[in-house]
């Protein structure tokens, strides 16, 4: 399958890239790892006339700490995330999630910025970003701004990004030491998108859940931060009755499609099952 023709550009700075994207107009797109975009171009579901490759842009790769924030450059690959010592220590849910994305080859190329900017409800990182209350830093010819992951997604492939916008980094306030975490993903086979998945971060105090945040993947047009379910968990003993209520609250906000991954009713139910498993695993990992 041969993609439609396009002009290729390789700028070296964020400014240059953002200006190029603005000038070239509606039919220009950033190119990161290409592992969503090139697939769409081959199917001619995307036919950009210009690709602006971000791989030569300075300063978009790597992980650093800034005060309470962990800052991850947009061009950091899933492979980099899996092998980063700082993330392994402070935000292990990212490694757990990245390891469940596709396969080793895709993870060497696919970037975290591309994963969150893509807007495909099947992508795994967006829900994790909502769970962690991450912020996306966006550069454009008009300047920089920051948007919460919880406000970023409007629909399938419909996000806060406008022409000339580039996600430059992701900022996450690290959860407290000893927090529990889990990303539970149901998939039909290795490398598949989720039938349903749930991300959970929680902290325990004296055996009870002090704080909790839950988000869901691929059970609606957008990732879903499960605010109600998070509230039910927080302050509870995480017992069976609580989990039943939290799972019901999470299922209630889903609106999955019936597709190759299964009928809608099944996928909604699986969102609840993934939530239960994620909470139990997070609880087992948390230090009280």
């Amino acid at each position: 399958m041969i993609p439609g023709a396009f002009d290729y550009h390789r700028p070296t700075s964020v400014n240059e890239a953002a200006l190029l994207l603005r000038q070239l107009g509606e039919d220009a797109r950033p190119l990161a790892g290409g592992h969503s975009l090139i697939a769409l171009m081959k199917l001619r579901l995307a036919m950009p006339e210009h690709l602006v490759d971000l791989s030569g842009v300075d300063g978009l790769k790597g992980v650093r700490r800034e005060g309470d924030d962990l800052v991850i450059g947009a061009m950091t690959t899933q492979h980099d995330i899996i092998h980063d010592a700082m993330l392994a220590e402070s935000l292990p849910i990212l490694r757990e999630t990245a390891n469940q994305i596709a396969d080793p080859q895709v993870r060497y190329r696919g970037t975290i910025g591309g994963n969150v900017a893509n807007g495909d409800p099947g992508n795994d990182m967006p829900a994790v970003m909502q769970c962690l209350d991450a912020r996306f830093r966006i550069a454009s010819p008009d300047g920089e701004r920051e948007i919460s992951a919880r406000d970023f997604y409007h629909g399938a492939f419909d996000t806060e990004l406008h022409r000339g916008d580039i996600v430059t980094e992701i900022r996450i306030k690290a959860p407290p030491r000893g927090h529990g975490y889990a990303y539970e993903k149901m998939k039909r086979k290795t490398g598949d998108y989720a039938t349903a998945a749930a991300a959970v971060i929680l902290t325990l105090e004296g055996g009870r859940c002090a704080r909790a945040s839950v988000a869901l993947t691929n059970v609606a047009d957008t990732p879903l931060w499960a605010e109600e379910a998070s509230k039910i968990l927080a302050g509870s003993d995480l017992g069976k009755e609580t989990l039943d209520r939290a799972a019901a609250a999470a299922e209630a906000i889903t609106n999955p499609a019936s597709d190759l991954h299964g009928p809608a009713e099944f996928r909604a139910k699986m969102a609840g099952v993934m939530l239960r498993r994620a909470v139990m695993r997070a609880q087992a990992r948390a230090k009280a």
Partner: protein
Amino acid sequence: MSNHHIALAVNGKPVEADVESRLLLVHFLREQLNLTGTHIGCDTGHCGACTVDMNDMSIKSCMCFAVQADGAQITTIEGIAHADGTLSAVQEGFRLMHGLQCGYCTPGMILRAARLLMENPDPTEEEIRQGVSGNLCRCTGYMNIVKAIQYAAAKLHETPLVEAAQ
């Protein structure tokens, strides 16, 4: 549509070419360089038959434009044997352990296995299975592929790793 001059190294040899921006790396390798050992299975990034080594990473060459490989170091199945033509440890493993039947997936499997062993010289069976999870084989049922990689890992412990990289 734009054309670009690219310069890269393929199997240790410098290569220069003018390529159309939309030319995929796999087509560049197969059709312009006649390195037809790299296969196209699914053309959608799933099967791994097109796996090559680029800048010390296993990549699916059907999901990368040739122009993105400008400046890269690439190894294909044609470059995996030792310089004297004898088989590398991974190749030998596939041969001796019957790690292939039709052979369609084999070039991708071997490239992936070689990189896996460079990153993790002593993988468990589980790590091997995860490590080649981006490579589909319709024939073998994977048992003998796992054995082939285990054979190579054992063999490489006696010989310097650099040799496998060549």
